[in-house]
């Protein structure tokens, strides 16, 4: 079984978001980048399934420039076998999906996993685009993934519940908790990751279908209005008469 796990490089979840003075780009200065938390579920589950199925391999794929390599190495340290970096700055979800689909097709991967979305651009788009480009089923978002031969059984989150879905390989799934407990690399993994193959390939095509014109921060809050705990019921009157939300 060949697993392809797509990871993106995102600002640490505690990052205070700021933009360049023209508001055209995210301000990376002083920001630590991590593997997208949703992608960690995909990566760990792929490694768990590899360990349970002898002869399987896990390849990590990132679309990004050279500054993403520390996190690619981290994914290798967690247990992936090799990695591919498409050497390009991601333009939009369509651009990224085209790169992933091209790699997936060329490598004839059986299972293509990624996080539900990235915590920076929050697109929740790439999985479906890759599935459609490859002409294979997509399951999104998946909370559980088990494999038996070439058949996968997944739990897919729906509003108010879950669906049990079975698909045959190849397929694409976007992952979220509680799929597994994400792993952190140990020292042995970090040492072996240094020698694992990391192939850098050029992007295919140059297409994007969307373009960010400008970023903006939400308007600042007016400040909190405090109500005395001894008179807590007053809050309910304010919510009805002032805020008009009940």
């Amino acid at each position, binding site marked *: 079984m060949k697993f392809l796990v797509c990871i993106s490089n995102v600002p640490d979840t505690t990052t205070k978001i700021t933009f360049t003075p023209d508001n055209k780009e995210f301000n990376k200065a002083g920001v630590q980048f991590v593997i997208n938390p949703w992608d960690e579920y995909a990566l760990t589950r792929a490694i768990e399934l590899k360990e349970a199925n002898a002869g399987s391999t896990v390849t990590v794929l990132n679309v990004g420039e050279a500054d993403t390599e520390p996190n690619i190495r981290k994914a290798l340290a967690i247990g992936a076998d090799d990695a591919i970096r498409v050497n390009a700055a991601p333009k939009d*979800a369509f651009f990224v999906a085209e790169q992933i689909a091209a790699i997936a097709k060329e490598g004839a991967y059986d299972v293509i996993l990624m996080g539900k979305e990235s915590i920076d651009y929050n697109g929740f*788009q790439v999985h479906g685009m890759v599935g459609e480009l490859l002409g294979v089923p997509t399951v999104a978002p998946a909370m559980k993934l088990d494999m038996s031969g070439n058949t996968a059984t997944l739990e897919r989150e729906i509003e108010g519940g879950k669906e049990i*879905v079975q698909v045959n390989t190849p397929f694409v799934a976007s992952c979220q908790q509680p799929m597994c407990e994400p792993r952190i690399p140990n020292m042995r993994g970090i040492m072996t990751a240094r020698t694992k193959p990391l192939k850098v390939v050029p992007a295919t095509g140059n297409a994007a279908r969307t373009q960010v014109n400008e970023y903006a921060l939400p308007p600042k809050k007016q400040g909190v209005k405090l*109500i005395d705990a001894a008179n807590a019921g007053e809050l309910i009157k304010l919510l009805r008469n002032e805020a008009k939300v009940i």
Partner: protein
Amino acid sequence: MSVLVVVECDKGEVKKSSLEVATYGAQLAAQLGTSATAIAVGEATDASLAKLGEQGITKVLYDKEPRLKDFVNNAYTKLIATAAQQEDAKAIVLANSNIGASVGSRLSIRLQASLATNVVELPKTDGGQFTVKRGAFSGKAFSDVALNGERKIIAVKKNSIEAQHEAGKTAEVVAFSAQLSDADFADAPKQVVMQDQAGGILLPEAERVVSGGRGMKGPENWHLIEDLAKALHAATACSKPVSDVDWRPHHEHVGQTGITVSPNLYIACGISGAIQHLAGVNSSKVIVVINKDPEAPFFKAADYGIVGDVFDVLPKLTAAVKELG
């Protein structure tokens, strides 16, 4: 040229988020000088679909194929793509739900369309560009995005537009068939398992949410959260540490890596307000924080606050709501 609105239905009724999407689609159609047609998915009655006229929809296409009752990604994609082609839809509007995002992303490839998810406002269509405002960085920012393709697909964030109700207006419900084959249902769910929702209110659709954190001290105290939620007709939620220790189920976890919500009212009880939690709730219209620690960072993001013990404050709030009747 028309606007096609994808309307999700459940148990015979149109979902609240789809009423918002229908309103958005009708307003977009008016902006573009055209009409809005809906395609219904899920289980609907003709009467509930006809009521979409109240949101400004003129015609509703409905395929009564029984296997479309539950979400089937491939079949839904084909159904909506067929309707879009029949109606010559240049804009397709969906809810930013698990269904909307799953289908929208596949449709964008099939129809060679530009896709924007998490959209919070009507598009700007002046100056030769078609741009939408969408949430980014887990609710910590917004971006204005130009959709360059000839066709546009827009997934509208829940609670970002108020559904209109123009009483008495009805839409024409028209039978529709996308000629779906057995192969289109290959990824149909084998089983659908519904989980208990407090008060029967789905968290992603809720207008009001009462949420608890570690300050609740244990699952045995959650009745205080549930009592207030019931009185307010609100959904219940929790912070990540609470779901991590299994006090509450995962589907109640709101935050950056949980469910993102944008209700009219979010009441946080015993939640300190880590930046990852704020990211999932900060687009709520009004935030109330109850915490005994006056230095809790959540107070900086709140509109109203009570510095006090949740075990003392929550029963008082529940009683006050009941007094309102």
